[in-house]
């Protein structure tokens, strides 16, 4: 073993320095031993707490297991059941709606704020902090704050303001059409600051020479925005699209805390996939069926991540 000293060509500097050593190990070999010592516990963790559970989630999804009985292999039955489950289709549509509405609304708002904030110097840090603050809060707590805002008169802030200005009261969380956007609003509100800060970082990374050159050529602000800022910001935008879409599709804390009894109501109007998974697993203890749903969620998120990787590779 000790004869194969320079197995690692990159480590060429060190073997000469402290050659020999304990039991005739070369420096490179000793370092490899140290590396595996350092990695031993983490490998146990990642195998036991990440990879094995992932594997077993797939396995459980092919069984009829309900936590007390036996695990019987039932093939694709859980997945077939999903296609016939009206509630599952409802929560799938809701989940996609959270993403389809949440993503453009939040991203456009964040871009507009970041674009103008980038040009502001006076109290820049303070204003940025105001927008960022909601990002760090406990979603469960904020769910209840917004739930209070949505209450009917005389409790809810929004309705009090509407009535003060002579408008009609709105049902918000009690309406099957208004409830989903009402639940989505605090999620957008909480994530906006993160998106703004990332956009600001992206904007700052664009070399100022580009802008100067464009100005010399007499380009107006709109043209510069369209031809320089937006194209050069594309990697940042792609990153945010992926992160934010995944965030919206995994929405749970807000819905659980803002809707009555955490049921994703009224009439499942706001129920996202994660809440249905939670109910299937921990109210009905239908573990096989619940894991099949988590596998679908996983595949959805995987597609989004792979699209990002594909885009990055293409560049």
């Amino acid at each position, binding site marked *: 073993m000790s004869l194969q000293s320079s197995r690692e060509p990159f480590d060429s500097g060190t073997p000469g*320095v402290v050659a020999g050593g304990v039991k005739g190990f070369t420096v490179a070999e000793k370092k490899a031993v140290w590396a595996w010592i*350092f990695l031993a516990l983490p490998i146990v963790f990642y195998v036991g707490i990440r990879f094995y*559970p992932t594997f077993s989630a797939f396995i459980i999804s092919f069984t009829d297991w309900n936590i007390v009985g036996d695990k019987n292999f039932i093939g694709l039955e859980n997945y077939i059941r999903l296609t016939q489950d009206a509630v599952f289709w409802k929560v799938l549509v809701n989940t996609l709606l959270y993403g389809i509405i949440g993503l453009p609304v939040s991203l456009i708002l964040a871009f507009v704020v970041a674009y103008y904030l980038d040009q502001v110097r006076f*109290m*820049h840090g303070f204003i940025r902090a*105001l927008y960022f603050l909601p990002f760090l809060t406990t979603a469960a707590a904020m769910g209840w704050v917004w739930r209070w805002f949505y209450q009917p008169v005389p409790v809810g802030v929004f309705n009090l303001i509407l009535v003060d200005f002579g408008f009609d009261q709105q049902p918000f969380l009690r309406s099957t059409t208004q409830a989903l956007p009402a639940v989505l609003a605090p999620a957008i509100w909480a994530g906006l600051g993160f998106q703004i800060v990332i956009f600001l970082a992206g904007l700052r990374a664009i070399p100022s020479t580009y802008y100067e050159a464009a100005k010399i050529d007499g380009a107006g602000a709109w043209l510069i925005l369209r031809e320089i800022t937006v194209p050069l910001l594309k990697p940042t935008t792609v990153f945010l699209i992926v992160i934010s879409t995944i965030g919206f599709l995994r929405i749970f804390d807000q819905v659980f805390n803002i809707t009555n009894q955490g049921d994703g109501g009224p009439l499942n109007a706001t129920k996202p996939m994660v809440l249905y998974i939670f109910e299937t697993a921990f109210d009905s203890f239908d573990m096989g069926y619940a894991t099949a749903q988590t596998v679908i969620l996983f595949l959805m998120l995987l597609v989004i991540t792979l699209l990002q990787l594909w885009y990055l590779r293409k560049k």
Partner: protein
Amino acid sequence: MSAEAIATPLTDASDRLSRPLLRPSKVLMWSVLMVGGLLMVLPFIFMVSTSLKFNNEIYELSLLPKEPTWSNYQFLFEETRFFRWFVNSLIIATITTVSVLFFDSLVGYTLAKFKFRGRIFVFVAILSTLMIPTEMLIIPWFLLSRDLGWLDSYWGIMFPGMMTGFGTFLMKQFFESVPDDFLDAARIDGLNEFQIWWEVAMPLVKPALAALAIFIFLGNWTAFLWPLIVTTSEDLYTIPVGFAAFSGEFTTDWELIMTGATVATLPTLLIFIMFQKFIIRGVMLTGLKG
């Protein structure tokens, strides 16, 4: 705090003075941004102000309580288990953060600075865990916890977060910028590899460690789904879970709910105010590297 010193940009005043004129469009832009920012924090102001109101005043929109009172806080800390939940969250978030800092930086360092067979494989494997959503793991974790008797315990709440792929990736990036010469010099001085990591390399990445610490602490402080599933006895609730249970019980006592929300949120707001610049820089950094 040293973060506070960086927080005031030195260029601000001079930048402004060097500009010839305050154009009206700029003033308008600034004002709109400012109003938007104030609207963003308005929910907190409502929350805090209502927590200081008596029940009969909560139907008024005024932001300043007529008769400010601590009675809601008194009720919360004396009649409910909020204090206990607060302490639980503090313990859990602290232990998890320490563990993540230790292991993520150890693994990140090993992957950045050791050349050994299987290095790429280990790195890709750890990185790939970032693609596995927690929601898919909670059911297997629940079973594991049940079989090993971890349900309803601190360890049960903490174990899934003791190491993170994100932190490992972040620390690896930072350790890669540490010059090998430093480590080789320490090797010649006779330090063993563990000492080299702990005494030489770790002090060089302190800013990254601090940023990671803040993210992990906040992440654990606000975590909801897993603690909700793994805890059953009230004494083990973390603050978000306890708060949700409490609010479900007192559904119409909005002044108490707002007090609970304030207690749950305040520590994160304080951390933000203390390390503002630092946190934002950390977000930018991870955003650009991600």
